[in-house]
């Protein structure tokens, strides 16, 4: 208590100096806090995006890349590939396939360019879509390649506005389709707006939207039983497809298997690198702030050598003097830390609104700010404080 009031008085006596030193710490701690907030925010966003798609999701698509200068023309996936995975891959709980074509869709009110997708019955379960209104396709509609569609909320907004969409008619190309269902809103992923789509049974899609596509599918999506089964499921899918495509041991895959787990790992690796780099810069800023504290504390000790001598003459022990100057340094750094939380809140909001970065300033970030500022105070305050405590009383009294 007394050490605190002495420190406060000493700092108030040199206000400008104290404020400038605090400014240095403030910048350092808020840099650290912003980096921490950036890391937690980005990680949370990646997790949320993955949870949205399903953490156990595995995507398989044909590898249409160039290989050895020649295009591997045979690379394609079919309904039969999907069926084989469904039957033989034990780590897989569900498989769906879909084809997509960008097309202009007309309603009575407006027209809009969107993804027209041909899907199978498992699509809703595997992708985790549910219905906001209406219903999905019945088996007879699938068999009959009926002209019915289910639409996403973005499409509904564009084509029907506030009007109810279920029961309305849509035209795609030469054909007219009845809207029988509206998907519940699912939001955006990094790749797409999940609500921007028109769905129809894949049979209907193949005969009316893209008659040339045959049995080909653009994408097979499988979901592993749990996210822990992902690696095994990926391996099983690869083996099944290699066998079906009659790929010899010397030939590379003509398809690509991507899992959400892999995506998460890749994203986190990038994130670790970026936050590591930014963190290093923030620590440098904090270090410079700490050097500022040490510098100003050394000045303070030099200026108050005589005061130290007086205090010693009336009975202050070395630890009393040490504590006095350490408390002063801590007061500088912790007030910098507390103000740093304020600054980082402002910076976080600016980055969020201005650049669309997701930052999360939570209790952890505040704890980081307080603990780093205390640590800086201790590390950079101890040397000046020891210098004061080790003064010889006779020499100290002779000063000034």
């Amino acid at each position, binding site marked *: 208590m007394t050490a605190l009031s002495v420190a406060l008085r000493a700092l108030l006596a040199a206000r400008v100096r104290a404020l400038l030193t605090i400014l240095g710490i403030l910048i350092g701690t808020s840099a650290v806090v912003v980096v921490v907030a950036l890391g937690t925010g980005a990680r949370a966003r990646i997790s949320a995006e993955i949870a949205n798609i399903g953490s156990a999701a595995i995507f398989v698509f044909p590898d249409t890349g160039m290989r050895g200068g020649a295009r591997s023309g045979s690379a394609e996936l079919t309904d039969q590939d999907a069926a084989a995975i469904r039957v033989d891959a034990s780590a897989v709980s569900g498989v769906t396939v879909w084809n997509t074509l960008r097309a202009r869709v007309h309603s009575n009110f407006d027209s809009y360019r969107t993804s027209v997708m041909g899907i199978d019955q498992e699509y809703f379960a595997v992708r985790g879509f549910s219905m906001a209104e209406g219903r999905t396709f019945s088996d007879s509609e699938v068999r009959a390649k009926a002209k019915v569609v289910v639409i996403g909320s973005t499409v509904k907004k564009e084509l029907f506005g506030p009007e109810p969409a279920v029961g309305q008619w849509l035209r795609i190309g030469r054909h007219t389709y009845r809207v029988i269902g509206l998907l519940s809103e699912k939001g955006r992923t990094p790749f797409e707006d999940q609500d921007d789509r028109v769905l129809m049974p894949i049979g209907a899609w193949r005969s009316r939207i893209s008659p040339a596509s045959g049995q080909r599918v653009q994408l097979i999506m499988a979901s592993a039983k749990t996210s822990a089964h992902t690696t095994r499921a990926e391996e099983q899918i690869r083996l099944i497809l290699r066998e079906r495509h009659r790929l010899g041991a010397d030939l590379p895959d003509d398809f690509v298997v991507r899992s959400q787990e892999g995506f998460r790992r890749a994203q986190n690796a990038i994130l670790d690198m970026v936050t590591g780099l930014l963190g290093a810069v923030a620590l440098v800023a904090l270090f410079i702030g700490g050097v500022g504290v040490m510098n100003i504390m050394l000045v303070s000790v030099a200026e108050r050598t005589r005061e130290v001598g*007086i205090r*010693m*003459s009336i*009975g202050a*022990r070395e630890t009393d003097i040490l504590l006095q100057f350490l408390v002063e340094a801590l007061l500088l750094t912790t007030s910098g830390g507390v103000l740093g939380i304020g600054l980082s809140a402002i910076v976080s909001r600016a980055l969020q609104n201005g650049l669309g970065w997701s930052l999360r300033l939570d209790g952890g970030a505040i704890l980081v700010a307080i603990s780093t500022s205390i640590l800086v105070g201790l590390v950079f305050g101890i040397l000046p404080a020891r210098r004061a405590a080790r003064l010889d009383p006779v020499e100290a*009294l002779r000063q000034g």
Partner: protein
Amino acid sequence: MTPLVELSGVGRDYLVGGSLVRALVSVDLAIEAGQFVAIVGPSGSGKSTLMNVLGCLDRPTRGSYRLAGVDVSSKDADERALIRNRLLGFIFQGFNLMPRTSALENTELPLVYRGVGKAERRRRALSALARVGLEARVHHTPSELSGGQQQRVAIARALVTDPPLLLADEPTGNLDSVTTYEVLALLQALVREAGRTVILVTHEPDVAACADRVVTVRDGNVVSDVRPTAPEDAQALLLRARLRAEQVGSS
């Protein structure tokens, strides 16, 4: 009866620019409780070094120093800090008060280091300030006080722990003659009424004349130790000095 202060064969050497300076050669000195002792000598005689040793601010190079029966020459820094806090009170030429700090807080400071509680600290500090006649100035900071008043705050600070020994290093060096006698009268009264011991370093014969005993130091040794039969009464000298000041003022 054991003397309060007992120096035997105390010497203090310094290394200055590679050569050895013997500030104190060999001092034997015993001071009984209840004495007002003046230490005099020309500058460079070693009287300040003697004072630093007596005040446990410095350790003798050789010899032994017993204070209140305790050998303090062998104590470490923290133990010496404790001795300064418990047994000693310092009064300096330059007053040495904390700037921007009220008379009351300055006086409380030794009790802070002793770990005395706030209310008790305040009570004792107020009573010490009353003893030196500054009860009306307790909330003034040093810059708002005259030199004589500042020195009385310093005396109150030395008194507040009720130490057996007060050490005054040229306490009147920065004061005019009226305030000099004020301070001396106060120190004399403290010795007479409460049986305290005061050791005062000075180079002014007028000041030394008020002491019960005058120890002269030269070249690091005690060269004379006299007890005047009739020390000057500082209170009487103060009245005379005041009268003279008034006459000068009115003429």
